[in-house]
């Protein structure tokens, strides 16, 4: 935008900003989530909120969306002091939020969800025809390839995300809040979303955008406000700020490098998947090998079947044909427990959904896969002392914050939850690791820690399969990459061949044809 780097505030332009927060404080029992935070949003800009998990971004946007009442400070909307009573009230002012956690009813159709709470009626009855027409108009306008009559339960996560976004666009918008909207979108869908954002900007909509991805900040941000520990740190111009400066502002310390240098020493073949086809049709005729002491990337779009390859090896997805040879033995179709006992560990992508038991303590989660092993359990009874010691030791090793292992996982920030998830693999002997999207929704500080964790494993001689939709991750951490497309193997790239253009090329190869 026009002005140079403005640290804090910036001289107000002629018109008052669309939305201004003045000293907003939000306190939860035991935690000061927001501490006198200032923020302003102009019409027609994309304002990125940047900060580590637990910095207060979520609290801030839920406050703006009307879900929380602040304990102190004022909100000005179009220059008027405004109290937001509820989400409904905020929405009636044109403030709409798309949260990471969806507010969709799976058993209803797309159109029913789109107008949930604002159904079009005629004479007291639903005007289904008008509803259907409006829904199709909105979807067409947004360019989302969805059928209005489809049930949401049958949609993929990316498609559900589109419905959620469409919901925000259904009425007149003045402020649009997007919380990591691209985390489950494919490249093409992301492009589409960014085009929409551009269009919304033209219409004078102010957009608050939360992301951890540098590339997105580069692409769409106008200004960036950095929060740390619930406090306002700075507002900077997106054009003039460097990546390192942003990381510094966010973490309050210097970060030299996100990706560590890794010494690869490929040894014996550990995993040898031969012509694998899964029973659910997500993978067909895929062969990969992973050796000890290397990190092999498995790249591809969302839904390309890359997760399923690993899940089939781990005995979670049924194998229809082909063989999984691990450590020289045919392990096709072995159960998760058997694979674990052979030292094969799968770290799932969605920690809330299938990674962690959120309501139980850190200790119980860390030891869950290892509880039957002699160091944690005798013939009949658990060795609780040893378990507690182990948990504390792992918490220390991974720098869990706060280091209280008896707390429920739910009460930790996303990055620390991810650490607990990783710790599960350290509670037992593991020689082969599969990381499935290990850094989704994780702040940069934790990300660096996770990458170093993976590097250490590899350099200690473990075999690592890294499944990721995050391209830089694939490019910087692996020494060999397989690219999948729609359940099939597209390419294998080694060493210097691993470039952005090469990998991306295979992402879409046949789509154009």
């Amino acid at each position, binding site marked *: 935008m026009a002005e140079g780097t403005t640290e804090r505030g910036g001289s107000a332009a002629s018109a008052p900003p669309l939305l201004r927060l003045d000293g907003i404080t939000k306190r939860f029992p035991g935690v000061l989530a927001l501490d006198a935070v200032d923020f302003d949003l102009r019409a027609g800009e994309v304002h990125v909120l940047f900060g580590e998990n637990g910095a207060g971004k979520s609290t801030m946007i839920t406050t703006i969306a009307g879900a929380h009442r602040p304990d102190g400070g004022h909100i000005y909307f179009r220059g008027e002091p405004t109290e937001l009573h509820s989400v409904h009230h905020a929405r009636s002012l044109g403030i709409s939020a798309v949260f990471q956690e969806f507010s969709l009813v799976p058993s209803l159709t797309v159109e029913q969800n789109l107008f949930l709470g604002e159904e079009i009626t005629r004479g007291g009855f639903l005007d289904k025809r008008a509803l259907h027409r409006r829904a199709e108009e909105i979807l067409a306008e947004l360019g989302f390839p969805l059928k209005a009559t489809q049930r949401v339960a049958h949609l993929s996560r990316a498609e559900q995300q589109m419905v959620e976004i469409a919901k925000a666009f259904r009425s007149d918008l003045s402020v649009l809040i997007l919380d990591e909207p691209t985390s489950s979108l494919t490249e093409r869908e992301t492009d589409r979303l960014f085009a929409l954002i551009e269009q919304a900007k033209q219409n004078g909509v102010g957009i608050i955008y939360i992301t951890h991805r540098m590339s997105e900040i580069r692409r769409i941000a106008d200004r960036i406000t950095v929060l740390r520990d619930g406090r306002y740190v700075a507002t900077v111009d997106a054009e003039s700020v460097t990546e390192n400066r942003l990381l510094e502002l966010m973490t309050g310390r210097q970060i030299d490098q996100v990706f560590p240098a890794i010494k690869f020493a490929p040894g014996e073949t550990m995993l040898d998947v031969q012509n694998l086809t899964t029973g659910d049709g997500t993978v067909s005729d895929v062969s990969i090998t992973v050796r000890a002491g290397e990190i092999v990337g498995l790249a591809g779009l969302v839904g390309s079947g890359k997760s399923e390859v690993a899940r089939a090896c781990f005995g979670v997805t049924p194998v229809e044909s082909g063989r999984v040879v691990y450590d020289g033995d045919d392990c096709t179709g072995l159960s998760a427990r058997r694979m674990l006992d052979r030292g094969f560990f799968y770290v799932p992508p969605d920690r809330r959904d299938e990674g962690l*038991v959120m309501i139980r303590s850190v200790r119980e989660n860390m030891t869950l896969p290892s509880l039957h092993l002699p160091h944690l359990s005798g013939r009949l009874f658990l060795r609780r002392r040893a378990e507690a010691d182990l948990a504390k030791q792992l918490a220390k090793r991974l720098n869990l914050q706060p280091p209280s292992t008896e707390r429920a996982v739910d009460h930790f920030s996303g990055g620390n939850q991810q650490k607990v998830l990783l710790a599960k693999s350290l509670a037992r002997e593991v020689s082969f690791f599969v990381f499935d999207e290990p850094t989704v929704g994780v702040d940069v500080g934790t990300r660096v820690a996770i990458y170093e964790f993976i590097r250490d494993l590899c350099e200690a001689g473990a075999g690592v399969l890294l499944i990721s939709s995050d391209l830089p991750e694939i490019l910087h951490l692996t020494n060999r990459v397989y690219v999948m497309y729609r359940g099939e193997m597209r390419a294998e790239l080694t060493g210097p061949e691993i470039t952005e253009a090469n990998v991306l090329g295979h992402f879409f190869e046949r789509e154009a044809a």
Partner: protein
Amino acid sequence: MAVETEQGKKPAPRRNWLQIAFVRLGVLPFLLLIAVVVFTAMSDNFLTGRNIMNVLRQSTYLTMVAMGQMLALLTGGFDLSVGTIIALTSVVGATAMASMYAAYPDAAALCIVVGILAGLAAGSAVGAVNGIGVALFNVSPFMMTLGMASVGFGIALYMTGGVPVYGMPDAFGDIFGFGQFFGIPTPIYATLILILGMFVLLNWTRLGRYFYAVGGNIKASALSGINTRLSLFMAYLLCGAMAAVSGLLLTARLETGEANIGASMPLEAIAACVIGGVSLRGGIGRVGNVVLGAIFIGLIQNGMNLARIESYLQTVVIGVLLILAVIADQLRQRYIARLQD
């Protein structure tokens, strides 16, 4: 959140300590306090040593069932057939005991043992069928246990024709129903053993830990290499076995085998668990609190008897209490959510 140390402690609102006590302890202490105060005011006989012992003895039957129920609840299900299990155990146990006693009047002890084993087997079998349905065929616990409740009750009635089963050795009732050691009734000893067993199971064994894990997140448990089906199966099997023990002790107290006992057990057992802070969504609950929850319900019933409240109205009170406990639990969840937001 990362920041535990709060800077703004001074203006923290005063209402908080009550909220925090509520979140930490649940509804139970509050309810117990209210109940004791109210019933002490209503009846002079309530707060006497004898009556308290009476309450404890009467609560034992529910305590055992509630602990079994707790296992099903921990895994994210529930067991509506516990009442039927009690009835079936009673009928099968009494029939086996009585018919064997009629054939061998000199071998009373053996008859008692056989009767007890038969009863336990019958009750555990219902639990096993529940477990197979839920764990293997993915039938919802609601339908599975409701269906089995009907099946079991039908069998119990069919076996007896609705008539109580008489003819058990007197020693059975004398020892297990009315017996006392050092002034403490036998059922209380049995319950104490089971409480201890449950405590050890849930806190010191793998299976116990797996119950919590499976109820908390079954997918994460499966990916951690846990045999989730076996865990589910064991929960319902043990639930059936616990209800069967309760059924046998009740039979000893009544000195007859009855097909018509235990009808109110599913409700009361779930109520005891929920009041004791067991989450209906699974994964959370403590044995001690469940025992207190069961004793609380016994206390209410006893207090209402002393206060001469009609028995029909008593069931109304129990129902209302259950609903209130669930509402309180919801409120508590909301506070917890706020605490961690």
